């Protein structure tokens, strides 16, 4: 080992980058191959763009009520028609994408780390701690999810922020379960054993080696759950515990418009279709991510 091998830092950097690029290129090929995933990704990208450029895309003030113009059918003036207060539904749908995205992202940002930490810890440590944590998650799982969310939303008061916390609280056990199952599967894998036999501490193994392995299935699960999150948020809005009017939240718009469903179908249906498309986008993307992250797919 006394031979020194000089290595050019630039070259090392270049090669590292190349490896990463190769990985990305493979991902891209896998992505291209999965047509539904392409569709899903396009929907989500589209959603992001709409949210980002909402002020440019909207044709009206999303809050402005023109009472004489209420319940107008879709036309060139109001692409999606107007609602019961004479507001432009198209503009509200466009601005609503921001609310939807905020809810979905924040729930993800709160519940997944929580579930991940608890799940990996319980799975790795095992024994009594595992038992306690899993019983706790049992309690939360056995609760009807919407009711748990209602309880927390009610406890914290109505509003989007609290709805987000409430949904996160209702959601973490499923991520914890998943992370724990993954951890149990990975914990005794050869490469974890090797690292352990080389003297790695438990914390290091959990953080550096097990968590990344759980991450992909959590991401997949999360992207599949996005739809449910959006719909639960809508359900809370429907019960008066989610976003507050006049926030253009899609779920709120659907439920507010349902009294007009028979005669003015657009009031409820068009925001409903927006939910449908976005939920489907997240789901298709989630299915695709699973394929891309699956190392077996790369070998073929």
């Amino acid at each position, binding site marked *: 080992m006394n031979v020194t091998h000089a290595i050019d830092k630039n070259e090392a950097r270049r090669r590292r980058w190349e490896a990463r690029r190769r990985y990305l290129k*493979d991902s891209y090929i*896998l992505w291209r191959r999965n047509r539904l995933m392409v569709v899903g990704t396009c929907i989500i990208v589209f959603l992001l763009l709409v949210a980002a450029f909402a002020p440019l895309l909207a044709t009206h003030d999303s809050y402005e009520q023109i009472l004489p113009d209420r319940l107008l059918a879709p036309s060139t003036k109001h692409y999606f028609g107007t609602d019961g207060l004479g507001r432009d539904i198209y503009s509200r749908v466009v601005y609503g994408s921001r609310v939807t995205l905020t809810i979905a992202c924040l729930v993800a940002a709160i519940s997944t780390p929580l579930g991940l930490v608890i799940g990996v810890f319980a799975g790795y440590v095992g024994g009594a701690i595992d038992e306690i944590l899993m019983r706790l998650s049992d309690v939360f799982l056995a609760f009807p999810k919407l009711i748990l969310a209602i309880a927390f939303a009610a406890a914290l008061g109505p509003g989007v922020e609290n709805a987000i916390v409430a949904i996160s609280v209702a959601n973490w056990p499923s991520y914890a379960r998943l992370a724990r199952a993954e951890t149990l599967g990975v914990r005794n894998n050869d490469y974890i054993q090797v690292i352990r036999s080389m003297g790695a501490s438990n914390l290091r193994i959990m953080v550096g080696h097990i968590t990344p392995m759980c991450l992909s299935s959590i991401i997949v699960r999360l992207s599949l759950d996005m739809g449910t999150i959006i719909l639960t948020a809508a359900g809370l809005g429907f019960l008066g515990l989610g976003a507050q009017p006049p926030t253009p939240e899609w779920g709120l718009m659907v439920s507010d418009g349902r009294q007009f469903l028979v005669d003015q179908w657009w009031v409820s249906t068009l925001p409903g279709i927006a939910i449908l498309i976005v939920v489907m986008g997240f789901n298709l993307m989630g299915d695709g991510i699973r394929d891309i992250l699956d190392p077996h797919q*790369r070998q*073929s």
Partner: protein
Amino acid sequence: MTTQPLLSVKNLKVHFYTLRGIVHALERVAFELNRQETLGLAGETGCGKSVTARAILRLIDPPGRIISGSIIFEGRDILTIDEAEVRDIRGSQISMIMQEPKMSLNPVIRVGDQVAETLLIHDRSLNRRSARRQAVDMLAQLGIPDPTRMAQRYPHELSGGMSQRIMIAMMLVTRPKLLIADEPTSALDVTIQAQILALMQTLVSEIQTSVLMITHDLGVMAETCERVAVMYAGDMVEVGSVHNVLKHPQHPYTQGLLQTVPDKANPDQPLFSIEGNVPSLLEPQTNCRFAPRCAHVMDRCKREIPPVYNLNGDHQAACFLHDGSPEAQAV
């Protein structure tokens, strides 16, 4: 031996259409298998042994596809007859046992039923009960103690050796004319391997079945086979009687392979090893695929595909070294 071989594979070409391109898994596979003969198919991982076996049953899964060639079994070309006919042949005329016996049994069906199922598919006149009885008889024939109880078990309750016995029973219960054994013992311990090999030999001679024995273990091959075919990277490099091939290998690859076996090697000397790696199969074959690793490589080896040379006796090799030698004769 009869003049007409039981199975004759000619110019079999199989490609896999993968993410990275077309994998030319089989490029030029040809061999003949006579009645009641055991032919060994040797080669390393990825050389196309198993693909060959599956191609004989016409069971290449997508993204694989049989491009060309013929597989004549008892006068019929398996590659051209219709699907129903192939299904009829599978299991009744040609059977196959596989490397992982525990994985190859359906975990939720009792083993007796799995054995009986083979009979039921191919003999519609048979009722369930008599098929079961025949299955139990078959287990008894294999020397399995208490076959009736064994038939009631689920695969996970069995050891690897026992599972392989069940597989053998399942595949031989219809008395097929050809049994393909794809690495039947490489997942087993040596003592169990000995049992299974002995059992196979007994049964095969009893029901007069031909065997295509696929293995990477040259020892197993030497012990069980009458003739041997050696494959390298989807190409057939040498075919001949077991004595000829193992004692007097004529292809540099076969020679190298035999030398790498550590069994009798001198511990003080480094083992012979073939340098380099197996070539990528993404390119179609344009030369001798062994050329980059060959010690006797010549210029033409890198340019042309060597033809198969008939050597004296039952021995063929695909190597330019034999071009022009007195006994050699290109096919």
